[in-house]
Each structure stands twice: as structure tokens, then as C-alpha cells.
């Protein structure tokens, strides 16, 4: 029987009625993204959106990296005049804002956006249009802040934008407005992806994937998404209050009129500390995915790892004050935050021990590039974690706070703890995204260059920080004797930058002419490796049924699957939250251009608000129209049931 013989029926065509070949053809037709500009702007395929996110984040990484290189060149010797304070202050602000808001968080969410639906065995992310919307918001927010920078309107107040320096009195012009609105706006995209991810993990898991069979990477992304939901509103509140103070004359942060400057710091760090874990937790998920594959055994201490993730997620909200030890808070309160900051080292320690135990007891190690980066991660992150313990101590922090010691610490944690796993994850999942392997030879060069460059650039910063060099200075006097070590740091930074050039070359070359990968090149155990590389637009022709936490290792002969979903309309399986029992066949949204228009109108409103508060009023109309366009049913079967 061929699918062409089947007339559409009111209840639709089910996959049970089709042979394998026509099933795939039908599904590909139903789930396809149309070509052309409108099709491009309308796509709601999580893989397409995630790919755009990844490429965009990579471009922002380059921009953020270039701004770091510029700073390092200026700091390579004392009293250098290459870059003046005005540009330097914009550069370090752009570096921070870009790396935190436009690179690290989005790229982690994007990896989740790509992999989570594949790993839990579903056909698309929940709320696909919301995800499409989030990408356009992210892209326009990032472009907005960088265009502002090139128009000499880039924020120059640090990524943290403390008041009163960023307030109406001390930051005239539009630079601080650009910061505030860009923050509020791009966090909308983070929140949107977080919500979609949470619902996907809770409600769209393949039958049988009970809580104890969820891949650790998915757990990590789930916990991260929850942290985002509760942390991001805090920075949005802070930036909104700031913009109100600046644009309509409120006095929330003005101590002269009953406001307070420190409440901004509280709001900022109530977000800012969890932010670190928003970046770090997905990376732990990547490590938890790579380690078992290359150690050829299931992860040691699955439950301990899950509980550690959750513990870190919760504890991350109890540490924010350790960024404020030098503000003169009451001693007792500060001591509490020392204890809580120390406490978070325990679940992080558990994770390290479990990974080491897995590697220790596994089969013969396959020391491929992904695992190499995981070893780099151990080397660097453990050091960064230990300096973190030093910073948790109130008195000790008072000496090193806001010095290069802290710069060293958080680059050890963020680059060692998040970027190294991310690079490993790139080598690991690149075959899934492109169908081609990355070059191992270039990969090894990349690793060693990155590893040596990183340590050369950042290790000496610990020392120069203890020697008294504060952060965020555009120059330093000759007499203090910091010149030599800074030159060394700059050389290391250039080496590190070079490693990324090599990485990009490897990406480009491998995408064009890498070795063909096949479904499961690493012989890994999780569901994303069950589909072809790259995956078809519908992900799974039939939804897999899961009976093990490493289903591909458990089912060597054939894959148990579920049948009975429609093929002529976008249908996904909704399951129960804890046990993942099949519950509903729900429709998944078709492509739509309205999320793009919504992002455009929301973005225009934010942009306009920098120039007049009335933009909020005028912007309400296009926003309302595009949202109605988004949700109004168009008569497709996906809209009606």
C-alpha cells in the first residue's frame, strides 16, 4: 500500500497504516520547513533554530574574544596609550555582556534546544513558535548592542552596571540605556527557551523514560532551565528599575530621595550568581554525556549526580552576597554567606568524584578529542573551584575581591568549567549535527594550544591580583612592576585566541569534507544516536520506547517503538511527568512568520523606549497585532484539535 492511495480522513492518517518508506516520506513532508525567505523566517524546527543559535553565538564569541584581545594588547605594558579609558571601558563591558548574555547562556541553551528533543525521543520542542520567537529576540538584541558599540554608544559601565555609576546623574547619554534595555530584552529569549525546555522534558519524554532514565545532560538542562526561570526575572527587574530611574525620573536607586544603591547589587547578584551555574550546569551535563561513552560504561553514581545538580541549582540562590562582601554588610550575615558558599562545593565535589570514578573503572579509555577536553576541564576547573573556596572566605575575599585574582578565578571556572566541556561537546555532537566527523588531528592541536594558551593567560593573573592589581583598569604605572607578567599574560591570551582560530578552521573544513559519521560513530547509549546524522526533520519516524537509561546499549538488536501517531499533521506524544506513560497525542505548531514579527515589534518597542517612554504605548499596537496573528487559528489540523 502506498501513502498516495490514502485520502485525508478527518481523523487523519496514522503511521500504522504505512510502510517504512512512505512513512518517512509523509513525515518529512508534514514536518518540513518551506524554502524561500518566508519559509526561512517561519521555521519552528528546534534543530533549525538551535543551529541558528549556535552559529550566532559563535559569532558573538568571536566579537567577545576580539574585545578581550584588544584589552590584552593595551595591558601588555604599563602606561600604554593604544586604547584610552573611554574605549577600554566600553570594551570590557562589551566583553562581559557578550560572553555572559550573548555567548555562554545562549549557546548552552542552544545545545539543549538541539539535543533535548532528540534525547527524550520527541519530534519537536514544546512551544516551537516561542522558541523561534526567542531566537529572533536574541539575534536582534545582540545586533542592537553591537551596532550601538560601533556607533560609539556601547555601554561603558561594566556588565554589572552598578548604580549610581549607571544612573541618570553619572552616565549621561544613551550608553547605559543600551545596557539596560538590551539586558531586559535578551533575557526574554532565555526565559522563553527555558520554559519550552522544561515543558519538553516534563511532558514529551518517550514512553518509559521515567525520571531515573532521563539522560544526565537532559537533567542538567532541566535544572538550568528552572534556575533561569527564577534567576532571570531578578536582573530584568534590576535593569527595568534602572531604565525607569534614567528615563522617567523615578528614584529607586537614588539615596538622596529615599532610594538605595545597594539594592541594585542585591537584585543583580541574586541573578548573577545563579547565572554562573546557568552556564556551568549544562557543561556538567556534557561531561556526564561524554564520560560514559569514552569510558565504555554507564555513569557511576547516576542518582548522586542528579541530586547534586538539583542541590547546586537550589544552593546557587543562596550565595549572591559573596559578591558583596566589600560593601560593608553586617558581619554575621556575611559569615552565613561564607558557609553557604562553602557548602556548594560539596555537590560540585560529588560530581567530580563520580566522573573520576566512572573513568577509573571503565573499559579501555578512548582518548579522543572530546575526552581530551574533559581532562582539560578537570585540570582547570578543579583549580577554579578551589580558588572559589578561597573567595568564599569573607576576610580573604576582602584582599582579592575586584582584583585580577578574581578575573583568574572566574575564567578558570567559566572557561575551564564550561567552555572546555563545550568544546569537547562540539567534537562529540558535531557528527550528529552535520553527519561528518571533526578532524582528530586538528582537534588535538586545538586542545593543546587552548590548554597551554589558557593557563599561560590566566594562571599569572592569580599572582598579579595578589600583587595588588585591580580589575577594570585601562592602564597601570611602571613603578608597580606589573609589566613583565602582563606581557606574559597577553602572549598567553594571543595563543588562546589562536586556538579558537584553529577551532573555527576545523569546524569549517569538517563540515565540508569531514569523514562521514553514520548514526552512532562513538557507539554511545542515548537516544539522539538512534536517528540518522543529521536527524530528519521529524526526528523519529516512530517514537522509541525506553526501558533503560542507556537505551542504545540495552537494545542491541532492534529498537522497541510506539506506533499510532498521525503522519499528515504534526503530532507529538505527550506523556506523564514522572513515569512518562503515554497520555495524549497533541499537535505541534506549524511554521509561522508571526513569531518573527512579534520579535520585531517587541524589539522596536525596546529600541524606541530608549528615546521616548511613549514608544511603549505606540509599540503596544504592533505587539498586540503580531501576537494575535501568532495565536489565531489558521484552519490547519494542528490549530483545530
Amino acid at each position, binding site marked *: 500500500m502506498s501513502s498516495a492511495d490514502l485520502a485525508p480522513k478527518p481523523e487523519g492518517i496514522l503511521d500504522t497504516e504505512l510502510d517504512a518508506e512512505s512513512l518517512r516520506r509523509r513525515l518529512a513532508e508534514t514536518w518540513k520547513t518551506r524554502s524561500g525567505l518566508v519559509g526561512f523566517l517561519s521555521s519552528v524546527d528546534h534543530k533549525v533554530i538551535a543551529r541558528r543559535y549556535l552559529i550566532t553565538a559563535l559569532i558573538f564569541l568571536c566579537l567577545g574574544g576580539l574585545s578581550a584581545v584588544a584589552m590584552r594588547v593595551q595591558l601588555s605594558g604599563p602606561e600604554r596609550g593604544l586604547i584610552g579609558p573611554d574605549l577600554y571601558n566600553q570594551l570590557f563591558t562589551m566583553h562581559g555582556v557578550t560572553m555572559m548574555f550573548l555567548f555562554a547562556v545562549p549557546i548552552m541553551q542552544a545545545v539543549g534546544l538541539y539535543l533535548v528533543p532528540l534525547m527524550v525521543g520527541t519530534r519537536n520542542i514544546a512551544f516551537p513558535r516561542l522558541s523561534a520567537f526567542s531566537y529572533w529576540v536574541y539575534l536582534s538584541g545582540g545586533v542592537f548592542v553591537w551596532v550601538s558599540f560601533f556607533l560609539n554608544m556601547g555601554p561603558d559601565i561594566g556588565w554589572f552596571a552598578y548604580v549610581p555609576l549607571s544612573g541618570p546623574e553619572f552616565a549621561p547619554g544613551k550608553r547605559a540605556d543600551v545596557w539596560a534595555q538590551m539586558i531586559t530584552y535578551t533575557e526574554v529569549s532565555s526565559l522563553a527557551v527555558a520554559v519550552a525546555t522544561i515543558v519538553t522534558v516534563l511532558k514529551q519524554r518517550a514512553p518509559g523514560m521515567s525520571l531515573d532514565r532521563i539522560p544526565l545532560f537532559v537533567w542538567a538542562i532541566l535544572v538550568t532551565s528552572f534556575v533561569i526561570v527564577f534567576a532571570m526575572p531578578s536582573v530584568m527587574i534590576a535593569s527595568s528599575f534602572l531604565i525607569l530611574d534614567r528615563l522617567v525620573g523615578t528614584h529607586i536607586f537614588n539615596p538622596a530621595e529615599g532610594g538605595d544603591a545597594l539594592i541594585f547589587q542585591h537584585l543583580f547578584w541574586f541573578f548573577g550568581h545563579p547565572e554562573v551555574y546557568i552556564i556551568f550546569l549544562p557543561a556538567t551535563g556534557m561531561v556526564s554525556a561524554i564520560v560514559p561513552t569514552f569510558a*565504555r560504561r554507564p555513569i557511576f553514581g547516576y542518582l548522586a549526580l542528579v541530586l547534586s545538580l538539583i542541590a547546586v541549582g537550589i544552593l546557587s540562590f543562596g550565595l549572591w552576597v559573596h559578591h558583596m562582601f566589600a560593601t560593608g554588610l553586617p558581619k554575621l550575615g556575611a559569615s552565613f554567606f561564607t558557609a553557604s558558599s562553602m557548602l556548594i562545593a560539596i555537590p560540585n565535589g560529588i560530581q567530580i568524584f563520580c566522573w573520576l570514578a566512572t573513568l577509573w573503572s571503565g573499559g579501555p579509555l578512548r582518548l579522543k578529542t572530546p575526552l581530551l577536553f574533559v581532562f582539560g576541564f578537570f*585540570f582547570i576547573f578543579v583549580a577554579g573551584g578551589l580558588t572559589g573556596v578561597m573567595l568564599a572566605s569573607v576576610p580573604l575575599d576582602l584582599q582579592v575581591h575586584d582584583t585580577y585574582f578574581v578575573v583568574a578565578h572566574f575564567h578558570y571556572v567559566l572557561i575551564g568549567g564550561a567552555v572546555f566541556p563545550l568544546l569537547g561537546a562540539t567534537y562529540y555532537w558535531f557528527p550528529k549535527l552535520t553527519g561528518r566527523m571533526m578532524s582528530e588531528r586538528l582537534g588535538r592541536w586545538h586542545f593543546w594550544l587552548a590548554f597551554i594558551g589558557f593557563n599561560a593567560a590566566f594562571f599569572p593573573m592569580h599572582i598579579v591580583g595578589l600583587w595588588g592589581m585591580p580589575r577594570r583598569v585601562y592602564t597601570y604605572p611602571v613603578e608597580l612592576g606589573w609589566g613583565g607578567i602582563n606581557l606574559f599574560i597577553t602572549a598567553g591570551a594571543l595563543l588562546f585566541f589562536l586556538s579558537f582560530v584553529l577551532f573555527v578552521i576545523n569546524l569549517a573544513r569538517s563540515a565540508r569534507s569531514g569523514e562521514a559519521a553514520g548514526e552512532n560513530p562513538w557507539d554511545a547509549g542515548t537516544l539522539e544516536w538512534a536517528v540518522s546524522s543529521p536527524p530528519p526533520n521529524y526526528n523519529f519516524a516512530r517514537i522509541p520506547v525506553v526501558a533503560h537509561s542507556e537505551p542504545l546499549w540495552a537494545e542491541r538488536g532492534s529498537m522497541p517503538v510506539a506506533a499510532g501517531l498521525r503522519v499528515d499533521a504534526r503530532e507529538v506524544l505527550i506523556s506523564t511527568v514522572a513515569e512518562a506513560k503515554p497520555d495524549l497525542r497533541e499537535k505541534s505548531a506549524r511554521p509561522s512568520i508571526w513569531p518573527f514579527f512579534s520579535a520585531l515589534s517587541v524589539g522596536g518597542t525596546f529600541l524606541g523606549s530608549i528615546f521616548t517612554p511613549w514608544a511603549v504605548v505606540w509599540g503596544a499596537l504592533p505587539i498586540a497585532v503580531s501576537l494575535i496573528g501568532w495565536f489565531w487559528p489558521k484552519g490547519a489540523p494542528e490549530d483545530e484539535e
Partner: protein
Amino acid sequence: MTKAAGRIAGAVLLAFILSGCSGVQSALDPKGPAAGELARLIWFFTVLCTIIWVLVMGVVAGILLRRRQRRLHDPLRVDQDEERTISRVVISAVGATALVLVGLTLLSFFANRTLAGIGEDAVLTIRLTGHQWWWEVRYENAEPNRILTTANEIHIPAGEAVRLLLESDDVIHSFWVPSLHGKLDLVPGMVNTLTLRADRPGIYRGQCAEFCGAQHAHMATLVVAQPRAEFDAWYDEQLKSAVEPSSEEQRTGRDTFLNGPCVMCHRIQGTPAGAITGPDLTHVASRQTIAAGTLRFSRGNLAAWIADPQGIKPGSKMPVMDLDGDQLNAIVAYLESLK
């Protein structure tokens, strides 16, 4: 193994670098009881953390070097006995981690208490106000005519505790003299208290540690600790009005100063110049630096600073003034006389 040897060599080298440093602005070169306590704490943490790091890396090395039986069969088959042994090791490691953390928490708590106990016997109160980008230093005194205002250079009697009241006039700054004490912020709308004590006479450099705008890099301060008698003499000298010009050039300089835009911001006690937006210049020539540590005090630097403040410290509040060469020389001559 060569890697481990390399690391040990690195550690030795590092210790050498750290012990070799004695900058004027280093947390590892303590010159007061608070910084001494903190330096001990830093070293203790560093050594302990290094040991832990080396232990973990030892395990990593073990993983890389370990001989294994080839296990090409089913990855799901795990040796249950081995799992139990590993569990015990992991649990012990977590326990040890917890113990170390409890120890470090207590240690930092007691260090904090020690710090709080230093200088409850403060003899002197100094109100330090942060400005973009200089420090206003005001010695409080019960007698109004013994209140002293100066800038950027804080003289204290060596061996005695001094209470600093930290305030800000504009944005948040942070006062940090690493060889004497940890940092504390100057927050508008708040007064923070810091006790400073230098064991021995000497000059200790510090600089603003909280990003405060364009010239955050050039907001340094010097703490000058002097023997008591020397300090008292300095204090009495500073209380005096500015010296009268003693040459024609200095007199022209003073008139140019008083008739020009300088008086909009600066104060020179004993003259009509009484503005307090900028640093007090009554005894400017007794100070060691210009523009909050930007330049050493010298005639040439003073001339350069007045001629081109925006070139030397771009963004600073000191405007470029329209002075001809003679006027500039005269002002410099006058200011240079204000010992």
C-alpha cells in the same frame, strides 16, 4: 611522570615568584596586623588548595596511566564488587571534602573576628570621601579649628590604630591599601568604618578597587605612616594657611590662580579660593603625587598636568584652561611653593 615533575618545578618557581615580590601594593607583603592576618590566611588556603588539587590530579594521572583489562564486550556489564569499593572511596572523598570545608569556614570566621578586634583603641578618626577620581581626606577633631582637610595622601601615626569613615560623594568607590588591610567600599548614602594600623613607618600605596568610571585606573592613594612626633609636626604644619608668595613670579601665579577658573573647584586656605569640588591645594607641594597618584610631584609634571589634564587623565574633571606659557609657569611656581 614527567608531567608531574614539571608541575612540581612549576610550584617551586611559583613559590619563588611569590616570595620575591615586595611591591608597595601587595597583599603578600603585609605591613600591618590586619594584612598580616590576611596574608597568613591566604597562604594557608593556597597551600591547602594546592594539596587538594595535586591529589585530584594524582587520580587523573592514575586514570590515564592505569593498566586495564580489555573490555570490548557489553558496556552495561559492571563489576559489582568493584562498584562497592569505588562507592566507599567516593563517599570518603565527599566526607573529607566536607571536613575541609567546615575547617576552612571556621578558620575564616575566626580570622574575621581577629580583624574586627584590631584597633578598637583608635586614636584618630579620618573621614575619607571618594570623588571621581580622587580622595578627600578630612581629619575629624572636637575642636573645629583643628579639623584638617587634604587630599589623596593619608598620613597616620605608625603603630597606632586609625578609624576611617568611608563615604562617597558620587559613585561607589572602594578603598584598598593591600599591605595594610582588605578593601571596603565607599557607597553613597552609607558610612563604612575601617580601622587601619601600620606597624612601621613607611609609604603604602593603595588604589580604588571598585570600577568608578573613566579614570578608575588613576585613583590611587598613599598612606604615609610616620613616627608619632613626625606625624604631629606634619599635622600642625598642614593646619596652617598657605604660605605667602615670596617671588614676583609666584605672586603673578597666585593672581592668575585667583582670577582664573581654578577657584571654581579648588581651595587654598588663607586666600579667597574656597571651593571644595576639587582637591584642597593649601599644601599641595607637600604631597608626593599629582592627580591621585597619576604623576609624581615635580615641577615638570605639575606644568604638564595643568597644561594638559585631559591628555594625561582623559575624562577627569580638571578642564583644559586657556593659559599662555608665562601664566602656566607662574601658576606652577606658585603651587610649587605651597609646601
